[in-house]
């Protein structure tokens, strides 16, 4: 009797559901948790808002019902999701899918190998051609060089012969006197005149 009375008239607030369904999370405004309380709040006594017991009982009942239903629904949905996951991994369709994927993979790999082979053949031919061309070029270059060497040698020999030819006319100590006499005997006149039309006149007013 006493117990029942105490339950009706002295509800224990902290155990029952909150009156307002909106859950306002406490937010720390300016102060952090270590800041002391303001001096104006020294004698402050915080009284919670009064609660109507009848309303509270009704609300509590409704809330428990609501929570039970929601929990059951959540479990149902969770089961569906996990079942789907299970089907995906270990289901009946999973093995066929795996087989099909393996088949696809094998065919694709085969196609890939064929492509590689074909391209390799083409590449080899191309490489061969290029090698041959390079070989040809090298040979030609060698020939050219040889040719140039020979030309050069010939040129040099010609120059030597020409020099030899000229050496015959050089002035040496033996010919010195003779040549001096000759030079004095035949004075050469290098002066000439030219007019605007380009006519050259060799005969000038000189000895």
């Amino acid at each position: 009797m006493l117990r029942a009375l105490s339950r009706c008239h002295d509800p224990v607030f902290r155990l029952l559901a909150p009156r307002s369904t909106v859950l306002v999370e406490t937010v720390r405004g300016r102060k952090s948790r270590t800041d002391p309380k303001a001096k104006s709040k020294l004698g402050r006594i915080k009284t919670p808002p009064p609660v109507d017991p009848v309303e509270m009982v009704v609300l509590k009942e409704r809330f428990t019902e609501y929570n039970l239903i929601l929990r059951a629904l959540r479990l149902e949905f969770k089961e569906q999701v996990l079942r789907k996951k299970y089907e995906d991994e270990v289901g009946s369709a999973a093995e066929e899918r795996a087989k099909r994927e393996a088949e696809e993979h094998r065919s694709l790999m085969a196609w890939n190998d064929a492509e590689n082979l074909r391209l390799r053949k083409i590449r080899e031919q191309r490489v061969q051609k290029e090698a041959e061309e390079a070989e040809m070029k090298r040979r030609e270059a060698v020939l050219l060089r040889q040719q140039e060497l020979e030309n050069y040698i010939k040129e040099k020999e010609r120059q030597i012969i020409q020099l030899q030819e000229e050496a015959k006319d050089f002035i040496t100590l033996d010919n010195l006197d003779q040549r001096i006499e000759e030079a004095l005997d035949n004075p050469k006149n290098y002066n000439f005149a030219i007019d605007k039309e380009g006519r050259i006149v060799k005969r000038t007013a000189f000895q």
Partner: protein
Amino acid sequence: MVKKKRLRLIAEMARKIRAYRELKNRPQDSQRYALDYDTMTRPFTGKKLPVLAWKDVQRETRLFSLLSGMRMFGVGRLFTRKSWLDEHTEPCYWKITKVKVDYTAENMDHGKAWGILTFRGKEEPAEREVDKVMYHDWRLVPKHEEEVFKHCEPVPEPPVRYVKYPPLLRAMILAQQAKQLGVDASTIPEPSLPLKRDVLLNYEYFRSQDEKKQEGTPV
């Protein structure tokens, strides 16, 4: 690369010393839970107790206030809490097995206790530290009333309740089942939601479900 961290050995040592001092100078239970009954503040932190607790604090007692006046500090006795008495019809009580009193308390009024909890008629197998010892909520069960108090008829658990689905979900489920079976939706029995299901959703469960589906109905 990051610059080489400077080894602050003295700071490290200071930190260790501070931690050690904090450990050594921990506030005793009697200090932490001392209460000024006139202003309803705890002198240690300076905080005030919430208003709704004032009535209980003035009327009821702490566990150790009761224990300090008993032989052997109430080892082997049963203690209930007023909040349990209000909430639950089944008996809930602590049977004290071990008591460690705070020697700094004046009236040996604070400390720690261990015991075996029986909550709503179901006894726990192991000994545990008593929770909320400092709450002004405790009541001693007199020796001559212990048997009467402990006596409880185990109320059988009510059968699982089935509830109707919410309307939209119900329509969706009926449509899906109709499509699967190829039958009109009105012929399908109403789907019901069990409010409690003790099932662990793992691969074993699904595999067993699959096997059951394959088996079908036994001949």
